[in-house]
């Protein structure tokens, strides 16, 4: 019997309600800790294919007769097209089609940002397509761009109405405080720079469309295209077998996909539209810059009495208002909180989700502010956080499905304890210190998500679902979950994914949701298959099903009998056992969140402003860990990306024209292997008893959330200097050091003045 219920779905903090079907026979969770396969390290199932260069990414898809597209983009931050002439381009050799704003919605004659797509051409080669777009005659009316977020806010140029949140009475809370700290923090625009650029190959077959695309959500792209083109969803097949990184920027179809589709339709040939690295850094999204004006008040013992934040997100020409105030609203128990978030509409490229959007930026400000408060009150920073521990959901009305942040803090103690030894290694010029920051984020996933598990007569199982593995190892995790439920060795389980024509609906790989959304569906499908196998075995051996179980590739009976799985499935010859599974709802009335803490150790050269991160310890609570090997890699990867955000990465604009100056990987500096500190990853690894049949939350985003703040707080510990903006360039570090020297000498003068008076 299936029940139809209305439930809530959350992706990156955006909640929606939807109908789902729930099976009655919910599975009990497995016990905590390592099982036969789940909870044990497993090498990536697709590791060899990727490492040997055999994996076919979208970038590698070559179809017979395939044409290449190039896109003409606005050279201006803000301009109107006065005239466009495509004919000359179409006359060039090897050029097969040219389209402009009149031909396709994705192309515009009103360019709101540099890089806005205006026209496109398909040709036999990419070079010929580039020549074609250079031959397009364009006349622009150049308009004055708005580039300053504060000016935009002052002029009420917002992407959406301001978002306000209030609980308690902040003014009263500040008035009651023994200490109040205030600060303005800024974070920069960061570019995703997945190594596989945004790209699609489109091919029509009659009225059916095939799209190979580098995406985090094949099913979402399928539905989006179907709706846009007004064709049935089942006439659109979206394929992404291997994916070269997304980090949030590849959640939608994107204009390049529509360009490929339209050019393929006009030419009757497959068309690839692949962005160059420079286009990638212009027009595929970014983590928006923020300005955060924050205040916190606390009693002498460190108990928070008020938190106040005014946030401006530089959203760009389009985009959504990421929850920069989220950490301030949710991380601590504080009765009086007021936040206002505004999204500045600017003539800059649109933002896109980027690994914990909003929370990365907001955690930097909030957790730096907390350390300012700790210093002012002379309270230990870890103790300050414990004193303001939120035992129940700070937003009210709900309980946590599980929260083990206290255990994270406990596990952090040995790392935090190192600060005495680290500080003692300070020298005249290189000062050393330790800082920490807490992490809160979503990551509960949700329904609907479906999987099938097929068991063949050879006793091998195949998980089939239209999800994607964007490089996180979700393919391997799904195989582990199915293997566990079927009692099979991991080598006997394959996973088929990445194709909307092969398998049921599966959810997006974003918002740290793949394992929590898909894992329970896969387990449920495997359990369905297992039940069928045991039914068959029971009949074959004249036993009751309840005495039978699957273990080690065999059917085992309570009385000691054991039959290899294939002796039962083999009876069926070419028959197949097909298990079906669905993701159940999230627990009603509960908030499903991830938690953690990171402890950073730094050395600061007080003469040059050079900062070296020497060690980062990360302790995260994301429920059950399915694959400790991949989990550690996620943590390391998140921290390394955060180190880039903290020190070297910054999109720079020409302040007059708005042109993006950092379009290459030479100008835009990603971290290299030489920039990596020692990283220690630990997990609480306790299943969330309320969350699905698996008890796992997502881990993709949590590790990137607290790193910048932990580093900034370590810098403060080492030098007393408060960095206020990311990235922490030498310039910013020297500014903070000078400010600190000034503060100290002012204090010194005061003391001298007081004693001489």
């Amino acid at each position: 019997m299936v029940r139809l219920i209305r439930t809530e779905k959350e992706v990156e903090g955006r909640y929606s309600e939807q109908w789902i079907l729930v099976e009655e026979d919910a599975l009990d969770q497995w016990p905590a800790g390592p099982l036969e396969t789940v909870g044990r390290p497993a090498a990536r199932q697709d590791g060899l294919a990727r490492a040997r260069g055999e994996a076919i990414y979208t970038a590698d898809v070559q179809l017979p007769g395939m044409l290449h597209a190039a896109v003409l983009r606005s050279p201006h931050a803000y301009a109107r097209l006065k005239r466009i002439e495509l004919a000359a381009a179409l006359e060039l050799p090897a050029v097969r089609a040219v389209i402009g704003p009149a031909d396709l919605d994705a192309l515009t004659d009103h360019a709101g940002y540099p890089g806005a797509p205006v026209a496109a051409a398909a040709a036999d080669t990419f070079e010929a397509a580039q020549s074609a777009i250079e031959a397009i005659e364009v006349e622009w009316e150049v308009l004055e761009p708005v580039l300053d977020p504060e000016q935009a806010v002052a002029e009420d140029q917002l992407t959406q109405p301001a978002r306000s949140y209030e609980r308690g009475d902040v003014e009263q809370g500040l008035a009651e405080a023994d200490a109040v700290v205030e600060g303005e923090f800024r974070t920069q625009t960061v570019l995703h720079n997945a190594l596989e650029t945004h790209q699609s190959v489109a091919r029509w077959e009659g009225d059916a469309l095939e799209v190979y695309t580098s995406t985090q959500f094949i099913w979402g792209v399928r539905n989006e295209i179907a709706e846009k083109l007004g064709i049935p969803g089942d006439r659109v097949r979206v394929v992404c077998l291997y994916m070269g990184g997304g980090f949030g920027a590849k959640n939608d179809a994107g204009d390049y996909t529509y360009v490929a589709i339209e050019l393929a339709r006009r030419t009757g040939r497959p068309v690839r539209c692949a962005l160059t690295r420079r286009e990638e850094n212009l027009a595929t999204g970014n983590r928006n810059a923020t300005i955060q004006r924050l205040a916190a008040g606390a009693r002498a013992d460190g108990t928070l009495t008020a938190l106040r934040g005014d946030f401006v997100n530089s959203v760009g020409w389009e985009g959504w208002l990421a929850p920069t105030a989220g950490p301030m609203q949710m991380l601590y128990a504080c009765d009086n909180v007021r936040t206002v978030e505004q999204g500045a509409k600017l003539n800059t490229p649109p933002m896109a989700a980027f690994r914990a959007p909003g929370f990365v930026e907001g955690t930097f400000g909030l957790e730096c502010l907390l350390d300012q408060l700790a210093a002012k009150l002379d309270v230990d920073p870890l103790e300050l956080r414990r004193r303001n521990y939120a035992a129940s959901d700070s937003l009210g009305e709900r309980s946590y499905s599980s929260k083990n942040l206290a255990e994270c803090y406990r596990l952090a103690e040995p790392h935090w304890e190192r600060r005495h030894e680290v500080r003692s290694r300070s020298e005249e010029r290189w000062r050393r210190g330790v800082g920490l920051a807490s992490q809160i984020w979503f990551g509960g996933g949700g329904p609907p998500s479906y999987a099938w598990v097929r068991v063949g007569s050879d006793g091998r199982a195949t998980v089939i679902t239209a999800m994607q593995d964007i490089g996180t190892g979700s393919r391997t995790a799904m195989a582990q979950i199915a293997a566990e439920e079927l009692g099979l060795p991991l080598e006997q389980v394959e996973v088929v994914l990445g194709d909307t024509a092969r398998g049921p609906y599966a959810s997006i790989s974003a918002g740290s949701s793949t394992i929590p959304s898909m894992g329970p569906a896969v387990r449920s499908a495997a359990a369905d298959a297992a039940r069928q196998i045991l039914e068959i075995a029971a009949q074959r051996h004249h036993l009751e099903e309840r005495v039978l179980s699957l273990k080690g590739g065999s059917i085992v009976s309570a009385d000691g009998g054991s039959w290899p799985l294939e002796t039962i499935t083999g009876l069926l010859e070419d028959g197949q056992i097909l298990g079906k599974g669905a993701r159940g709802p999230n627990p009603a009335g509960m908030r499903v969140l991830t938690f953690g803490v990171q402890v950073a150790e730094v050395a600061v050269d007080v003469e040059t402003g050079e900062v070296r991160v020497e060690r980062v310890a990360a302790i995260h609570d994301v429920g059950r860990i399915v694959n400790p090997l991949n989990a550690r890699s996620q943590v390391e990867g998140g921290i390394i990306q955060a180190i880039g955000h903290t020190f070297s990465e910054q999109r720079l604009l020409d302040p007059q024209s708005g042109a993006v100056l950092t379009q290459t990987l030479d100008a835009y500096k990603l971290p290299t292997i030489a920039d990596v500190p020692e990283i220690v990853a630990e997990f609480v690894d306790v299943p969330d008893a309320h969350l699905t049949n698996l008890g796992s939350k997502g881990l993709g985003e949590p590790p990137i959330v607290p790193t910048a703040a932990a580093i900034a707080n370590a810098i403060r510990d080492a030098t007393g200097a408060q960095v206020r903006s990311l990235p922490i360039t030498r310039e910013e570090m020297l500014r903070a050091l000078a400010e600190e020297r000034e503060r100290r000498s002012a204090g010194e003068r005061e003391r001298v003045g007081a004693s001489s008076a």
Partner: protein
Amino acid sequence: MPELELTINGDAYRLEAPIGRSLGEVLREDLGFTGTKIACGEGHCGACTVQLDGVPVLSCITLAHTVGTRKVTTIEGLRDHPLVEAFVRADALQCGFCTPGQIVSAAALVAANPTPTNEEIRHGMAGNLCRCGTYPRIEEAILSW
């Protein structure tokens, strides 16, 4: 179009390629060696690394006609190199798009120096970017191959 003769992974190839065509384009588009990835196309990221006579070079900014008699080794020629297993064992890849280039660079590194130190690995591999941040695992893979 000018003729081009190349020795790739021990096999001889003859084709026509315009002057100015990069080795990366010839490998990927003309000959189907798609294991070599192009991620930036201007010599900044290392994803396209191949070896010429054992020396790692960036195939996206190497003109095909300048290769001459030097022997080209791509990831396809290193598929059975023990480093490949070591990368998988150490979990030294996530999305995997940079991985063939990483392995081609690492293979040249260990050919010259089979037991590099951490410092030597960091020096030798600093030209190969990985956006997923698998660097600690790459270091481990090259230490443990």
